[in-house]
Each structure stands twice: as C-alpha cells, then as structure tokens.
C-alpha cells in the first residue's frame, strides 16, 4: 500500500484562456504525509490544489489520486471525461478547506457538518448528528453546535469547515490557505486542529503562508513560482537552506 503515492502529478498544465497558470507540475504525495505548498500569490498553488479534486480541469498531463486518474477514465490510449455524478463520487474521499471557509450560512454548525453525510452517504440524521457533534468536539466547538456561521468568529468558522470536511471520512485533505483570512490571534486554534490531524496520520496538502507550521508539521515542502516547482525537499532544508535564488528572495520577504 505504501508504495503507491496518494497524489501523483505528471506534467500538469492548466490555462485560463490565454493565462498559462500551471506549466508542467510533477510531484508525488505519499500516504500519511503532510505536504506543504508555498510560493508567491499567483504562482498557481491554489489552482493546483483545486485541480486535485477536479474543481478545475487540467489541460495537459496526468493527475492521479490514490492511483486513479482525476476527472477522466482511460480506455486504451483514449481519455473519457467522467460524468458529473462520477466526479462527485470521487470527491467524497477528498476533503477541502477553503480560505474563505465557505460554510453554508443558512445552516447551524452541526447542520453544516451533517449535510454531506446525510445527503451524499444517505446516513440517518440521528447517526450523522451524533458523529457531527463528536467532530465538533474534536475541533473544540462542542458548545457552538447550534450557532449559525454568522455567530462564529473566523477561526471558529474555519474549524467547523474542517469538521465538515472530516465528516466524509476523507483519505486526503486539501487546505487552501486555511489561515489567510483570519485575525492573527485566531490562527493558532486552526493550526492546532491541523496539527492534531497530522498526528493522526491524515494525508494533507496544505497551501500556506505559515512557515512555522510548515517547518514544524510538514513532511515535505514545495516552493512554486510562476506555475512551476522551483524547489522541493524537507521543510527544514528548504526553509533554512534554500538553493535557488527565487526561493531565497521569497523567503527573505516572508520570514
């Protein structure tokens, strides 16, 4: 099992009209790994993350999650686009946490967490609610279950969003700058939850500007710039001893 990477990208390209965002990304994320993506804004980190669960469709290359092609089915040397329902089926196993939380504002915290298990997995409401309350407890928000998102702070909303993603029992979690929209004093709570997840062996891909988190929790780190991977390695090595000039100049600005 361990031989097969959780995510494998081979020469992934992505353009939005004339804008060439990803220019050939090759990387592998092993199971149980915390994989950090850093880089200046516009470097394509978030776009790459969104390609992994097919929120964006790649233009060239191959992208595999758990050994299966993302968004396509291969028969011989021909690729067939997957139907919406098939894409939805694959997304069940991939949790995603957004920069802007994107909680459902018309549902309470616990209803947000229950929604996908009830609608997608057809769990009974009672079972889903019980599990949702456990997950909220895990992210330290057991007492906020009945609150609407507008009644929660940014950090609390993001932790509910993490619980919501975990409710589907994903084998991979994607974090798209989870702390960038938070007040500085709220960042710690969210990072603590993510640290706990990492300790439990969750495979995580984290787009972040939190270099401390990357150094401490990350197993590997990739520095992206202008749609390519500039430098990859263990976070400690890349952050303390960068080899490329672009990495050096980026780190000198953020550290």
């Amino acid at each position, binding site marked *: 099992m361990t031989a097969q990477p959780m995510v494998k990208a081979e020469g992934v390209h992505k353009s939005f009209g004339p804008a060439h965002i990803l220019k050939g990304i090759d990387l592998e994320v092993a199971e149980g790994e915390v994989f950090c993506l850093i880089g200046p804004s516009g470097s394509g980190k978030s776009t790459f993350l969104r390609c992994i669960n097919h929120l964006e469709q790649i233009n060239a290359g191959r992208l595999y999650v758990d050994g299966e092609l993302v968004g396509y089915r291969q028969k011989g040397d021909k690729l067939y686009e997957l139907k919406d*329902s098939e894409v939805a089926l694959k997304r*069940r196993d991939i949790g995603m946490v957004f920069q802007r939380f994107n909680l459902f504002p018309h549902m309470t915290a616990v209803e947000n967490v229950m*929604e996908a298990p009830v609608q997608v997995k057809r769990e009974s409401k009672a079972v889903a609610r019980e599990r949702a309350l456990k997950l909220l407890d895990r992210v330290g928000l057991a007492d906020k279950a009945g609150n609407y998102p507008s009644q929660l702070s940014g950090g609390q909303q993001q932790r509910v969003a993490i619980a919501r993603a975990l409710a589907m029992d994903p084998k991979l979690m994607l974090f798209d700058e989870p702390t960038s929209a938070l007040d500085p004093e709220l960042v710690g709570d969210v990072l603590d939850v993510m640290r706990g997840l990492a300790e439990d062996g969750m495979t995580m891909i984290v787009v972040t500007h939190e270099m401390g988190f990357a150094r401490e929790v990350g197993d590997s780190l990739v520095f992206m710039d202008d749609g390519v991977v500039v430098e990859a390695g263990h976070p400690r090595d890349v952050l303390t001893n960068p080899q490329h000039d672009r990495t050096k100049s980026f780190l000198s600005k953020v550290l």
Partner: protein
Amino acid sequence: MTDKLDKTPGPADAAPEQVPPDIIRAIPVRHYGRWVSAVVVVAVLGALVYAFAQGNVRWATVTDKLFDGSILTGLWHTILISVVSMAVGLILGVLFAVMRLSKNPVTSSVAWLYIWFFRGTPVYVQLLIWFNLALIFPILNLGFYKDYMTAVMTPFLAALLGLGLNEGAYMAEIVRAGIQSVDEGQTEASHALGMTQMQTMRRVVLPQSMRVIIPPTGNEFINMLKTSSLVVAVQYQDLLRSAQDVAATSFAVMEMLFVASIWYLALTSVFSVGQYYLERRFARGSLRSLPPTPLQRIKSNLLSLSHWRR
C-alpha cells in the same frame, strides 16, 4: 465571559466618590419649515376628505354591500385565481430560471424565448388569446384526450393560463437573480463535499437565494392580486366583476368600486404581513439575531412601559 461580570462593586474596588456628570440642557433648534409643511399637508388632506363627504356617495350602500353574498364569492374567486396563478408562476419561474442558467444552449434559448414572449406582451392581450383559442383550434386533441376547445377553455383555465404563464416569465428573472446572488464558493464547497449538481441546487443554492427572491416575489403577489381584476376580460367571476354586476342592478357604480377597493386593500394588507414573517424566516443565519416581530415589539414596549410607571 463578560456576562459573568459581577455588577455589585466589591469592597476592594469600591469606586471613589462619583461626581454626577453635568447634563447639557440646551435650547433645541426650532424647525419652522416642518410646521409649515405639516399644516399644508393636513389642509390638503382635510379638503380631500371634505370633498368626498360632500360628494354624492351613498356610504350606507358601501357598508351594506361590503359583505354581500355575491361580493364574497367574487372575493373568494379573486383569492383563488391569484394564489393558483402565483403557484403556477413560481413553479414555472424556478424551472425557467434553471433552464436559462443551464449549460445546454437549447434549453437556455427556449427559456429566453419564453421570457421574451410572455414578458414582452401585455397580460391583457395574453388573457384574450387564451380565451379565444377556440377560434384557431376548435377541437383540442391531445391524442389521449379530445374535446371542444370551448368546453376545455373555461374562464378559470383561461385566467389561470394567462396570469400564470405571464407571472412565470417575471418569476424566472427574479429566481435567476436570486440564484446568481449566491456566492460561487458555496457551490464549490458543496461540490467538494461530493454533492451532485441537483443536491447543490436544492440544499445549498436555492435556500440561500430565497432571501433575495422573497421580497420581489411578495411584490409580484400583491401585483397579482390586483392584476387579477383583468380576468373580467375572460368572463371570470372575480371581485371586480361581482362588484360591477351589483352596480349594474343597483345603479351604485362608484359605491361598488369603493367596495372592491376596500377588499383589494384588505387583501394586500394581509399578505404584506405574511410577507414580513416569510422574510424573517429566511433571514436565519444571515443576521446575527432576528429582529423582533411586531407582536414581540408591542409586548416589550408594554413591559418597559409598566417598568417606567413603577
């Protein structure tokens, strides 16, 4: 935990002798303009009331006929045709809004065509077209069902098709605006959880778009209550037509128009209150705390009044 703050000062932090602040007692600005405009407005209003009181109106007939049997039947028919047409309009509105936003160019063009036609022609003309359909299709043949068009196209059906299809075109645009007002991040989050397009629309997008959809829909319904008076054109026995029938036999033309107006006002007032509560229901989650209902407000006002008396 600020709510656990101890309000009674302990001995340790007893406040030093409090000096009462010197409260300002200034002479308020006099708004003479407001007095003048108030007097003018009241005078005009008074003249209007006086004119109607002096006019040749048999007010006794108005109160007499207000609860007349045929008027009440007409009132019921007005409510019925308005509610059913609005329901048809809502269903068509959601359907055509989704079609209009669909990626399929055929369905979106058909939706565009529907909206273009039914919004672009007067509802009065549409009513007459449905009513006179028998002139071009004397026999309705659906394959499994066959009958004379005049037998099928009753005044009620003509009114329903005319009002409902027209309303559907307006509702489609309102629903489309509502759907488009929901942040794209909501759809993405829903998709990322593995929810299908249909589930996302039904569980995430539509409930949130309701907040944008309901206020104009309330307007549409109040409009519908009044526009339904046009169904006189297709021989449907609504409130206005009942009032006119009574007027024709009793020669109380204006009086019966007043009766109709009173009922229309009553209907629109009642539905405005309903709209308020509906909006409040769908504001859940978007406001931190819901505004009190008028009833709750009256209660709290009375409570504070009794406090103040003590």
